[in-house]
């Protein structure tokens, strides 16, 4: 970086709006795909853990160990299996969501008060109907809390996929920023990441409130 390079060059931002928008949309797509797939897989795992309570510990141990693996290492270790592709990126990102989502879904479902379940049984709900119409709605706030953490985490992790040739905002931070000693690109990338995380978090909170109107009513 030359000495006179300013931290922010607004002309560069103005000239590269298209490129920045492109990276942003790549980023969002990878986040949405990973969190959605991660949620479906975690939900499945949570149902397994409910059915076979003894599997809970092992699922937690495996997902916890995966969670500890540094993202760059995990992306790289998947290359022999899935190559330098979007699949590699999404598979790794999905794996990272599992610990957070699985644990929150299980905790949420366990937190449903037993008398509520009794009441539902008394009203003649079958197990499946009771699950979808009573237990899941009550568990929803904690499930969404998990989704919020998983989403914010994933927004950060997507940046690392640029090392395996994928784009996203990590491209702005690392490839066109740090590697070329160009601060403007770094700061644009980081700022958009933070904004994205804040917006996603607020959006999911809003969704949760919309889906559980009774919680608001009770709070007055």
């Amino acid at each position: 970086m030359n000495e006179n390079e300013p931290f922010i060059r607004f002309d560069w931002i103005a000239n590269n709006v298209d490129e920045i928008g492109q990276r942003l949309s790549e980023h969002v797509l990878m986040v949405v795909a990973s969190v959605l797939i991660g949620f479906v897989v975690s939900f499945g795992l949570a149902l397994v853990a409910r059915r076979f309570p003894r599997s809970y510990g092992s699922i937690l141990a495996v997902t916890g160990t995966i969670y500890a693996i540094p993202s760059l290492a995990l992306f790289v270790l998947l290359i022999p299996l899935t190559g330098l592709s979007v699949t590699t990126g999404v598979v790794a990102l999905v794996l990272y969501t599992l610990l957070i989502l699985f644990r929150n879904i299980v905790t949420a479902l366990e937190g449903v008060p037993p008398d509520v379940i009794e009441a539902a049984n008394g009203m003649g709900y079958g197990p499946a109907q009771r699950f979808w119409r009573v237990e899941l709605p009550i568990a929803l706030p904690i499930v969404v809390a998990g989704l919020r953490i998983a989403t914010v985490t994933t927004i950060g992790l997507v940046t690392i996929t640029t090392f395996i040739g994928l784009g996203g905002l990590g491209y702005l931070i690392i490839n066109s920023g740090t590697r070329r000693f160009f601060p403007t690109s770094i700061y644009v990338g980081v700022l958009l990441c933070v904004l994205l995380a804040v917006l996603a978090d607020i959006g999911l909170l809003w969704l949760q409130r919309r889906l559980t109107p009774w919680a608001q009513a009770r709070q007055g």
Partner: protein
Amino acid sequence: MELFGEGIAWLANPGNWTDPRNGILLRLWEHISLSVTSLLVAALLALPLGLWIGHRGRGGAAVIGIANIGRAVPSVGWLGIVFPITLALFGRDGLGFLPALIALVALAIPPMVTNTYAGLREVDRDLIEAGRGMGMREMQLLRRLEVPAALPVILAGVRISAVQTVATATLASIVGGGTLGEFIVQGIFVRALDRVVGAAILVAGLAILTELIFSLIQRRAVSPGLRGRSALSLAEPGHVGPPVGGSAV
């Protein structure tokens, strides 16, 4: 799949370990010393802050709010934010260890602050009132009641920070900080995938080892008086910010 074999072959070659300028031993040393220094500096800043706001019970929301916004900054983002500043301030010295250290410290602080705060807040209020009634001073309350009761949650925060630090140290190589990430980042650049995969195996092992060591410490730190009580909630408190979900951002 043969790439795994190539990675392991790369690891098995003693010459790759001992090269004085770019050997595995050198990079491993850089990785560990950077991680340990960062974690220590972060702990010195974060733990007193967390204890202070946790004990007082005020100012918590503001600090936690800042910590959560900090969490939204991607790990590589911290490196990117810091190094143009250190470069402008210190010239060549502003590359390498220094920006990596600052970035890793910034990254390691939030989990320790939030967990220490949450741990202290979860301590039974009756316990503290009882302590006060027995004539304990504020420092005594903190040292003899609050910290022992909150220790598992506090140490969970330390564990999260430690694992995250070891993981992110890998990225320090993009600002000239060396570490095992050097083999991965440079290796991808020159398409030397054997050392990329070999180093990734090492890095993953190092992170999992860190997780295991700190989980062990955490498990042993449960105050004898609290052992056996609510084993479930002590097993994994606050890994993702207590209570489940916390209030990210």
